[in-house]
């Protein structure tokens, strides 16, 4: 049984045509299920856990990157398969998973190529793509060694799969490894520019800071966490429907 969850921003009139087309395509493909629209009064976690109790085996999130980041944190610990339907073409998560935007994503759902992919976990919060620290005054502790940036301004990104040019083509969501990429930011005449970066693969690290204020970590452009934080890889944690054009095996 399928449970389709429409994010609350899709209640806007400009998406109604698109949603009708998606519903029609889902019906044509024979993968119809229950549809729920998120709103201020409807909580995503409740909807999914109630659905699972009633026998839902596939949860399909329709929305954008932030929708996917939210739904992943709920379904990761449940025995369900996740499907995604991006309503725009700018989702790096969908691109890596080979899911085309809008109505075309329904065909991917129907083909049901299911992969178990890794997730990153910061304290108790999962992320699928990346987590970013922009105030780079941090110390990254591995088991036997510590890494600290020597420049003032740094961007530290923890990747599950690579969208950064330093790790693209090498970092995959099924390799059981996350990558920490440290990029110094130097002010130039034409704005900020990046220098050569650092790439450190890991399965478990601790991020601390010597700064007076806690350092913020933003996961999948959505949740803000604070240091100190423990980051681990959760291997093959999420069952997800992927497309044939995905960027990994």
């Amino acid at each position, binding site marked *: 049984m399928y449970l389709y969850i429409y994010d609350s921003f899709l209640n806007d009139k400009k998406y109604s045509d698109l949603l009708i087309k998606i519903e029609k395509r889902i019906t044509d493909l024979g993968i119809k299920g229950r549809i729920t629209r998120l709103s201020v009064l409807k909580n995503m976690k409740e909807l999914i856990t109630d659905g699972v109790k009633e026998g839902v085996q596939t949860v399909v999130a329709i929305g954008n990157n932030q929708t996917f980041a939210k739904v992943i944190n709920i379904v990761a610990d449940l025995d369900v398969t996740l499907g995604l339907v991006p309503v725009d073409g700018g989702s790096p998560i969908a691109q890596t998973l080979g899911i085309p935007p809008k109505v075309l994503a329904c065909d991917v759902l129907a083909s049901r190529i299911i992969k178990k992919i890794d997730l990153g976990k910061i304290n108790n919060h999962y992320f699928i793509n990346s987590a970013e620290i922009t105030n780079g005054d941090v110390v990254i502790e591995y088991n*036997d*060694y510590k890494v600290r940036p*020597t420049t003032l301004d*740094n961007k530290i990104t923890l990747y599950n799969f690579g969208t950064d040019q330093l790790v693209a083509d*090498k970092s995959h969501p099924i*390799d059981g490894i996350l990558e920490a990429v440290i990029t*110094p930011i130097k002010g130039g005449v034409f704005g900020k520019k990046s220098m050569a970066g*650092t790439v*450190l*693969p890991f399965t478990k690290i601790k991020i601390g800071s010597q700064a007076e204020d806690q350092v913020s970590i933003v996961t999948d452009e959505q949740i803000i966490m604070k240091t100190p934080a423990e980051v681990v890889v959760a291997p093959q944690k999420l069952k997800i429907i992927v497309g044939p054009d995905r960027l990994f095996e």
Partner: protein
Amino acid sequence: MFAKNQPIASQKTIETIIGPSVKVEGKFKGEGDLVIEGILVGDLQTKNNLKVGQNATVDAHIKANNAFISGKIKGNIIVKGKVEITGTAVILGDIKAQIISIESGALVQGKLNMPVTNISTDPDSVTPEETSAEPIKEEENELDKE
């Protein structure tokens, strides 16, 4: 980066890069290829290939499969295959490898050892010769001057 006849790591193994803006302290142990452009203090061991860039500073004993060195190293180097030392390299420590190549201009202060038998870079297989090889104290000052 490395000689053609040396084993190359799988394409899928991600390369570890210690960039020029980073300092690593402690016992660094890697599985894949390792590129150092920054500072490393402690111990360094990789099952694959190691590249020490021109501006890198390494204060550590090193164990690797193959090594390509252009930067400053204070500590002993044990390499299973080939060590390639370029003209910009400064090495204060002993080198043990099956093949050692040193370009003119490089500074190496220490013993060179090229055994006929295979060299083990396993962490547990440390010979008495290696354990006694502390970073050479008398040359410390020379590195500091630079």
